[in-house]
Structures are given as C-alpha cells and as structure tokens.
C-alpha cells in the first residue's frame, strides 16, 4: 500500500518551547486505513495531527525537521468545535459549503458535497440554523460535516467525540469504516480507546513525542477492558474491547 501521508524521522518543536513535541517519528498512512493515535496527555498525538495535515509549522510556527510527504487534500477536525467555525456563515448549510466553495468549485458540486456531508452526519434538519446557536454536540457534527465536504484524502480527527453523547460518538466512529472504504486515509487521536479499538485497522501509540508501538488493536493496553483482563490474570496481549475479551475466555 502506498502511503497518502508519510513522515520519516520527523521532529517538531513549538516556537519558544524548550523540548521537542515530536521526535524521531516515522509513520505512513495509506488510503483506506484507519489509524488510531493513542497516548497520555502530552504524548504528542494532537501535534502529530497538526504536522500530518501541514498546519504545523505553517500556521502554528515552530521548526520541523525530517521528511514529510503530504496528501493532496487534508481535513482536520479539532476537539473544540467552536474554535473551528468560520464565523462568516449565518446558517449551517453555508458553513458546511464554505470549504468546497473556497476551493473554487462550481456551485452544483459545492452544494452536492455539502448536502452529502450533512446527510452522513444526520444534520440536514440543522441546515437553516445559525451555527452560533447550536449545542456542543450539534456543533461537533457540523464541524465534521464541514471537513468531510472537502472530500479530503487524509482526514485527521482530534478527539472528535469530545462533545457527543454515546449514541453520537458511536455514530461518528461508525462513519469511519465507510469513509475508509471510499479511499480516505483516516488518522484519529482519541482518549476513547475502546471505540477506537472497534474501528481502527491499526494503532500507533505515542509517549513523550515518540512512537512507542505501531500495530494491531491489542496495543491499546490503556483501555478499561484491558485493565480488567490484566487484573484478572489474562496473559498478554490484553484484549482492548469487550468482544476480544469474550473471545479469550475459554473453552
């Protein structure tokens, strides 16, 4: 598989920071892959998304060393959706269409991709609402739709369910396999390791700005299910989610 986005020996330092936020990171993400990025607070998962989508150092400043191959089109969803609104649109429909419209496409394809994105997120009923008057959960869906409307080759998501209730979070994570099947490369940083374990095709674990593990879902040893299995005497690798734990229980 050829990687849509590839990093080779990448280090990144924020402006004015004493140490590196990422160091020696090599990582490729191919079309159709869903890569879950796990790591404790400060591990570098959010920074990695900024680097992978080109926002660092271009917008945030700082210095990047190493080799980076960027995808054709990137989309990033932040965990705080209100930081991501354009502030220029008075309806959700316009907000979602803003991205494709700013790519200079004709009116019909712009409206079509905005409509498709709103349908995917189940927010067509919000199309005429003012984004400023939405709840956190509604806003998060709007922001995800706005990014999907760009039809990115690489979709980067930073804790995208932070504002969603469990049904909304399931719906959002449930969307990822369909996007990946359509050829999108998905990179999702999340503390919600059990949901990530269910959809990820691969897991990358970061600690202190380094990649410390890269492989199958059982690397997500920080889930509550893995902790239960460990405490109950299950030999490693620890099952990260309920279905994989049940498969390990005999006979």
């Amino acid at each position: 598989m050829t990687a849509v986005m590839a990093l080779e020996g990448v280090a990144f330092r924020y402006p004015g920071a004493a140490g590196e936020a990422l160091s020696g990171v090599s990582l490729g993400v191919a079309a159709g892959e869903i890569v879950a990025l796990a790591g404790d607070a400060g591990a570098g998962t959010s920074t990695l998304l900024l680097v992978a989508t080109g926002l660092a150092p271009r917008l945030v400043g700082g210095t990047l060393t190493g080799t980076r191959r960027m995808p054709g089109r990137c989309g990033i969803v932040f965990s705080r959706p209100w930081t991501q609104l354009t502030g220029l649109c008075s309806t959700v429909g316009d907000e979602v269409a803003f991205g494709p419209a700013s790519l200079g496409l004709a009116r019909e394809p712009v409206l079509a991709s905005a409509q498709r994105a709103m349908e995917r997120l189940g927010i067509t009923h919000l199309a005429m609402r003012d984004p400023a008057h939405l709840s956190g959960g509604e806003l998060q869906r709007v922001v995800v739709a706005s990014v999907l409307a760009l039809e990115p080759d690489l979709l980067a998501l930073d804790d995208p369910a932070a504002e969603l209730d469990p049904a909304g979070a399931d719906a959002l994570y449930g969307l990822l396999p369909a996007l990946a099947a359509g050829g999108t490369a998905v990179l999702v940083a999340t503390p919600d390791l059990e949901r990530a374990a269910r959809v990820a095709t691969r897991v990358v674990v970061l600690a202190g700005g380094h990649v410390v593990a890269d492989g199958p879902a059982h690397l997500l040893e920080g889930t509550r299910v893995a902790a239960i299995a460990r405490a109950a005497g299950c030999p490693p690798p620890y099952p990260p989610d309920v279905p994989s734990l049940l498969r390990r229980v005999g006979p």
Partner: protein
Amino acid sequence: MSGGEVRVEDVRYAYGELEALRGVSLSIPAGETVALLGPNGAGKTTLTRLMVALLRPAAGRVTVGDWDVARKRPDEMAQRLGYVFQHADQQLFARSVREDVSFGPRHLSRSEASVAPVLEELGLTPVAEAHPYDVPPPVRKLVALAGVLAMEPRVLVLDEPTAGLDTQQQERVIGALRRRAAAGVTVLVVSHDLGFVAELVERVVVLRDGHLAADRPARELLYDARALAALELQPPATVEIGQALRLPGAPIRAAEVAAALRGTRWKRSE
C-alpha cells in the same frame, strides 16, 4: 454532613422559546453519589447551573441544605457547593496553578492548608508553578477540579469531569471523588461516560427532553437491558462482560469484574 442535601422541586426553566426543564423534581440526601445522564440537549447542564445560582428557575425551587438557591449569589453558593464546568478554561484565571487552586479557600477566608494535598492528590504538584494556560487542556480540567476540592465544599457538582482525560487522569479523579464521598460529601456528576459512572455512583438519574426519565440504583439500572435501551443508553464494558459471562453479583466496577474473572482459563491469544 449538614448542608449537603440537594432538593429540586418541580423546577422549570426555558431559554426563550426553548423549554429546557419541564417540571423536574429530585432529592439527593447528603453524602450520596449520583450520576445525571441524558442525551445532548436533555437539560443536564441547565439543571446543574440552577443548583449554583448561575440560572434562576422560572418556577419551582432548588435548595442546598437549608438555603434557597434562588436567594443566593453564585459566590455565596461557593461556600457550600463546588461546581466544575465542562470546559475548565471558563474557570481558570490566576497566574499559576497553585494560585488558581488557592483562590477559593483564600476568598472564603479559609485555611490554604488544603491546597498542597489536593495538588498532590490530582498529580498537579509538578506543574504547580506553571501558568494554567501552559498546561494541556486535560490538565487544566484537573486544575479546575483541584480549585473546587480545595474549598472543601459539602456538595460537588461536576459537568463531564472525565471527558478528554487519559486513563491515569481518570483514575485520579475517581479516587479523589470516592474519598470525598466516603467523607460524606454529596457528589453529582453529569457524564456521558457510563464506565466512569459505574465506578463512582450509587444512583443514576436520567433526564430526557427536560423531564426525569429514570431515577434508580446504578447497579439495578445498568443491568436492566430493556430500560437502558429505552433510554438510549449503552451498558458500560463491565456490565457487557458481566452479562455475557453471567458473572455473579451484577458487577459494575472494573475491580468487581476482575475479581469475578480471576481463575478464568484464558486462551493465549486470538
């Protein structure tokens, strides 16, 4: 602990045309741990804001101990009830983590002796001198919680205290809240995280469309698959495991499930 009882009597509240609470009644005895659940927009945050006098009910009454909350200002409520916002950035303002956490006890004219132990308890001692905005957002959330714990309130109301926290940080929050509950503090958590809820609370209250849709002991509700489905709630992993393997005693906490699974013959790997 006196002053720790929370009563909500037929409370209504509307944002303009939108009715957020349509007659909610709830009584929480001092020292109980309760989770407030419900989908986005159910009225959970509105209800908690009424408890701290950030909003006034359009009808009905909220009392904390013998205080009628509608007659109090938010700063007066802080003497009795500690509130942690969902977005911690809304409640941090000092120049260092330690200063921020010390602000409450100082302004309530209480001893600041509580500050250092609370910083230690939440793992904040290493960042005590850092500016609150120089620490990552999940750590800011712990700073906001520390600021409230340092005031030693009789009632704790926490809006999504574990959202965005990693496993180790969640464990610290669970530990800190269990210790407060054991000391008789009333704890009300608003949360979407049923795994966290199962670790902490004795009782679960569910709001939907501004109404009380359920109010039951946590263990009973979490094992009632039909009730959960009707409320559009999914059981936490512990309950899924407990049900699938028919574990005795309806375990809901991770430690209970692990204990029930000890002695299991594990297949080596998949």
